[in-house]
């Protein structure tokens, strides 16, 4: 099955609702939803990935903090899912609690393997 890279994007709007912090009870709810989602798409979830931290662009030029500043701002984390099609991969990503919502979206990209 083809694999897809899912990248969480922070979609910051000018004056969008500054997401309120979830309460402990809501976190419990999110934890349960996440568990249900993982159980449902068990076969698709190849690599749960993780959050992205510091980085540095390595080039032949000596310059270079360049695009990373923005990437850090924009990409929260990644994971890899396997799916029959882009649509199925989208379905998996869409179902992930907290991934798609106000202030956050997910970019789903097919990984071509030889």
């Amino acid at each position: 099955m083809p694999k897809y890279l899912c990248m969480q994007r922070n979609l910051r709007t000018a004056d969008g609702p500054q997401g309120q912090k979830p309460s402990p009870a809501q976190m419990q709810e999110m934890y349960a939803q996440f568990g249900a989602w993982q159980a449902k798409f068990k076969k698709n979830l190849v690599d749960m990935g993780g959050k992205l931290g510091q980085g540095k662009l390595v080039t032949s030029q000596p310059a270079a903090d360049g695009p990373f500043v923005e990437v850090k701002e924009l990409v929260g984390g990644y994971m890899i899912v396997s799916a029959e099609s882009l649509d199925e991969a989208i379905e998996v990503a869409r179902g992930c609690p907290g991934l798609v919502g106000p202030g956050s979206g997910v970019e789903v990209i097919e990984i071509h393997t030889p």
Partner: protein
Amino acid sequence: MSTPRLVEHFFRHEYSRLVATLSRRVGVQHLEAVEDAVQSALMTALESWTVAGLPDNPSAWLFQVAHNDLVGELRQRTRRRRILDENGADQMGAPETGPEPLLAGEVQDDLLRMLFVCCDEAIPPESQLVLALKTLCGFDVREIALRLFSSEANVYKRLERARNRLREVPPTIDELTAMQYAARLPAVHQILYLLFTEGYLSSHAEAAIRQELSDEAIRLASILAEHPAGKVPETSALLALMHLHAARITARQDASGGLILLADQDRALWDQKKIQVGLTWLADSARGEVFSRYHAEAGIAAEHCLAPSFEATRWEKVVECYALLEQIAPSALHKLNRAVAVAEWQGPAAGLAVLEGFEPPSWLAGSYQWAAVLADLHRRCGHDHAARRYRDVAVKSAPTQAVRVLLQRRLQVAEFERR
């Protein structure tokens, strides 16, 4: 891979444990920093556990993360302050060493201590309640507003008042003395009672979320009863009262959430186990000479729980308890309740006689309880005109649809019977 299940209210209760323990270690004047650290540790846990699975000891994991975060934050503040004030003494209570492991029983002690911290006499009771809901139950401002039927702004204001006071508490006298424990105990009882009744007695609709408040009150009162500072007959009476009321909670509503009168409740639905626990606490509360309002109220609840049917209730005992309650805690509402019990015992005219010549305070006179009781008693005495007048007031001032429906049913059915 799948995420293992967590016990119910895990996040909320971890929140309260961590806030209690950490604020004892660094000083309650840093409560806000503590709460921020705990909140962010829980978020980290949520992110990490869903990907990597649960650690062996989730509580210890959380404690470590929250502790490190808090110490880092407090160190940074100290550094900032030193830059501002070269001679400033280091008043930050951040421990220099790593976290000591949590000792068994320590967490319970910390929760209890936090409960007494909330009941600072310089904090108004309504702020005490909000502070307890925030720190000891782990509800956030939105959730508290929802449960107290208040606005978020109002809850926030009350919380701020409490926090401002705690910020003033000098670190040196932060440790509560035995005398302070004793002095604050009545306030602690009151706040637990308030927490319980907010969940139980209120006629508001969302039963499930309200029952949580009652459960929280029982949880905290149980911790109190285990502790030397709280091991007094009043605490036992309070626990008796809570269990005896909670035993009947499911029978109070029908399938659609409508309220059911005591007389119509299916007594088979009452939770016998809770009744037994309540009665054990009631027996325990009888040691010593104290007879508090909680004793009186637990006594009333016990009479209802032990009665095989509404008709077979020992109303004379209920009346006696209400009379005692009125003596200990004079309130027009207790008088009204006594009138109801007297009416069941000696007839509606005797019930009305209790209220004869009594001018209710305005908060009660305008309430549906007052109007509904008078409507019912007058109706049963055959005073149709007065009955109708009070019924209209009662229906009009009913706070929720559930109560309105109940009143209409009770007062209408009765009128139908008379025809």
